[in-house]
């Protein structure tokens, strides 16, 4: 089949073409619905034949998502989706491979696999659906739950502080890192598209409201009256400016970020200008620490770097090996070492 034909087929697809025949079974009001819709909206725009998409998930409410997409899918084991996705991508680098995972799935039982997938820069898209709770097992605290969280398993409050998914991914060396929010459909779709188009491991944290066990966890960042003050949109090449009425900018003071009011049109010299391609760990760390420093929550793409993918390296080694040793065959294989004749 020629590429032209393929594209032809692809462009005809719509959101509805990506809905499977399975009834969606999340609780009413669950943020996962919006995320599913966002994905279904973006997939037809990616110029990829439907049969080339593979959605791989672990276990959790969020990890049920692949059942509701009409693409290839694999609902694997708790925490292990990155390993299965790795196998799929290395077996067939042509496929567009996505990982759907939850905060418990990805950062409790599965953080090691996630770390290594990101470090290897395998070209898969990871969507970490963060509701800061274990949904499917009915409401225990997760590694992203805030310290002191009262749940069935922590009646007096959880003792340890949270892991920040974005910092984790940045530190693991992911070449694309972003944060999106279930309720912000436009922003979510834009990021999903960028993630899909990125060559290399893409990581997107998506805030998701668990209506039943952790309702309102992201209230400040989503409520109409607070969100403009509580968040700052990351736009490549643009300054970090936010605020509903009074515009504010984030400036650099030594190695600290600070908020200043900007009433005129001109920004102070030390205003931070966002760049997704800085490859500067200090900037990444600064940005991802806003949240626990009382600064507004950054939403959007944190980092996008172009680096060779693992599968490229793998294919190159195969090719260079064939170039130097010739394409192997059984005779060459079995007589490869030294042998002798017995007469």
């Amino acid at each position, binding site marked *: 089949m020629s590429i032209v034909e393929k594209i032809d087929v692809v462009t005809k697809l719509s959101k509805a073409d990506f809905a*499977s025949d*399975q009834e969606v079974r999340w609780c009413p009001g669950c943020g996962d619905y919006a995320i599913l819709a966002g994905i279904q909206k973006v997939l037809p725009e990616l110029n990829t*034949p*439907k*049969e*080339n*998409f*593979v959605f791989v998930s672990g*276990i959790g409410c969020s990890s049920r998502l*692949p*059942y509701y997409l*009409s*693409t*290839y*899918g*694999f*609902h*694997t*084991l708790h925490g*292990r989706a*990155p*390993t*299965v*996705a*790795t*196998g*799929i*991508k*290395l*077996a*067939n680098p*042509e*496929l567009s491979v996505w990982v759907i995972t939850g905060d418990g799935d990805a950062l409790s039982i599965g953080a*090691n*696999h996630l*770390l*290594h997938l990101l470090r290897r820069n395998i070209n898969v898209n990871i969507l970490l659906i963060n509701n800061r709770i274990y949904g499917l097992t009915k409401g225990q605290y997760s590694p992203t739950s805030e310290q002191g969280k009262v749940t069935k398993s922590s009646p007096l409050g959880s003792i340890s502080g949270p892991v920040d998914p974005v910092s984790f991914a940045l530190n693991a060396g992911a070449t694309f890192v972003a944060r999106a929010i279930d309720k912000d459909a436009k922003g979510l779709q834009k990021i999903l598209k960028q993630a899909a188009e990125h060559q290399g491991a893409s990581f997107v944290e998506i805030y998701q409201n668990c209506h039943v066990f952790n309702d309102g966890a992201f209230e400040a960042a989503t409520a109409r009256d607070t969100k403009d003050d509580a968040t700052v949109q990351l736009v490549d090449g643009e300054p970090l400016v936010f605020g509903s009425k009074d515009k504010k900018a984030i400036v650099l003071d030594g190695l600290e970020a600070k908020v200043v009011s900007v009433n005129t049109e001109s920004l102070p010299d030390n205003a931070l200008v966002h760049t997704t391609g800085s490859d500067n760990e200090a900037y990444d760390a600064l940005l991802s620490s806003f949240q626990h420093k009382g600064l507004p929550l950054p939403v959007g793409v944190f980092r996008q770097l172009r680096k060779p993918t693992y599968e490229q390296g*793998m294919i190159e*080694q*195969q090719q260079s*090996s*064939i170039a*130097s*040793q*010739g*394409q*192997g*065959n*059984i*005779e060459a*294989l*079995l*007589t490869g*070492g*030294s*042998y*002798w*004749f*017995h*007469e």
Partner: protein
Amino acid sequence: MIEVSKAEATNREVLEEVTILFSGDSGDGIQLIGDRFAYSSSVKGNDISCFPDFPAEIRAPAGTTAGVSGFKLCFSSEPILTPGDHLDAMVAMNPAALKQNISELSDNGILIINSDSFKEKDCVKAGYQENPLKTGELDRFRLVEIPLTQLTLDALSSLNLPRKKALLCKNMLSLGVVCWLYERPIEELENWLDAKFGKQHLLSEANKKALHSGYNYADTIELFDAGFRVPKANLPKGRYRHITGNEALALGAVVASIKCKRELFFASYPITPSSDVLHSLARYKNFGVKTFQSEDEISAMGAVVGASFAGNLALTSTSGPGLDLKQEMLGLAVMAELPAVVFNIQRAGPSTGMPTKTEQTDLLAALYGRHGECEVPVLAPSTPADCFTMAIEAFRIAVTYMTPVIVLSDGYLANSAEPWQIPTDEDIDGFSVANLPAQSDGALFQRCPNTLARSWVLPGQKGLEHRLGGLERDYDKGAISYDPDNHFKMVLTRKEKIKRISQDISPISADEYSGADVLVVAWGSTHGALHTAVQQLKSEGYAIDHLHLRNLNPLPEGLGDCLRRYRKVLVAELNLGQLNSVLKNHWSIETEVLQKVSGMPFKIDEVYQHCKQLLTDNSQ
């Protein structure tokens, strides 16, 4: 290809076979000379069998028994299956090597020692109270004391090597001595050294000098009363090479991939004694092999499951502790009905156990180690070369029945080399992947009526998009199902699918196993010792047979009838009776067991004695 040199010698005693042990510190290069001497013997036309035995530490303290490395080799003019129980000759580079192994040397056996390393402090380090050279305890052997250290330094003095470097050639000097003793031309070894280091290289020079010195020393000072000759064995004509079990598994996997025309994807996490499979396969990139060193065993198994979903022939290798970690993911492969192969190279357990020692204690874990009703086929090669055959067979079963398959090798098979007649492409049976649907035919979750396998639908195929997972699914449509009857049906279907494999493997032949007093039933690496012992007893007129199972799940057809044809069934295993419990689960028969769980293979003699006892009891 190396030409067999035709060096002649006179005045040599002819022996049917010789078992020799090279032993010394793990830094002494023992494995190297053992391995090479084995190769020379093969090239000379002997059959060989060998057993390398090394310590757990990379390089344990020099001179201690913990650090002793040994390489046992039997070369013979008759076909042989094991390196034999007793030593005819032994090289001990130091007192620790002597202490560790001397009990195996036969009376009047040749004992070559490095006399320079039997100082007071060397003996103490090895745990001797007194210098064994002085106590008379070695009198019953033919002791040959050689000042190996000094001879090596002398031989290399002209090269101006640092002392430390020069001393590394001691092993070659001792090899030279042994070459004289057993009439091995040293030209072939010289060629090998040239190839290894480069012809002009100082190390090549030094090693060749040491080798020559040893040979000449033995010759000149008439070190031995006589030299020996072990004539050529009567093996089938053809091309041969040495092969270890681990190499054979790797080769088998690549051949399977070429034969069925699907790329081989191999993911593994290093662990002794399986790592060599990784090392081998990493070198086969030009055969389309993809190797992935994962972050742990769970990841390796996960990647295998993913690669299988995407249509590669998917493989992982591991050892005991790693098998434990793969079980959950194996269960997913069972549920998703995806083909995959696991090579599990058993080692002495439980837990970390004795990592470099051999054992057959993972059978029950392979069969039952997953929660739920979760059966997988289990195969067990019985010799290093058989690892090649069974690797291919494992893939055939995996793709034909859409199931993960476990192959149980062990530390002994993994590291032992045997001569292997190299098959040609045509010699090897191929297999094809029958269940790849060509196009959208709606038969996504339909099963093949014979094998009960579902079809292997690969991402990228238009119109066949579907979702797999670990949840129970509907028999017909493949969607998640919590229906009680459906679940029972699926549990029984998965079981039946595995059972059907028994119709697709060699049955136990009723002619061959027509009944006698005793049947020895076993599996895996114990084949050589058991077969040799049983043959010995048969030749003495006893009514005994040996049945060696290579399919452990499902068991071959005809086995139950066969077992009932014998008055006694002896199940012999390097565990506490794991196959025995499998057999008893199938047939309510009384069995005897021969257990050994010491990290070491069976000795022929202990099997022989045990069987003889049984046979004698029997005839009363």
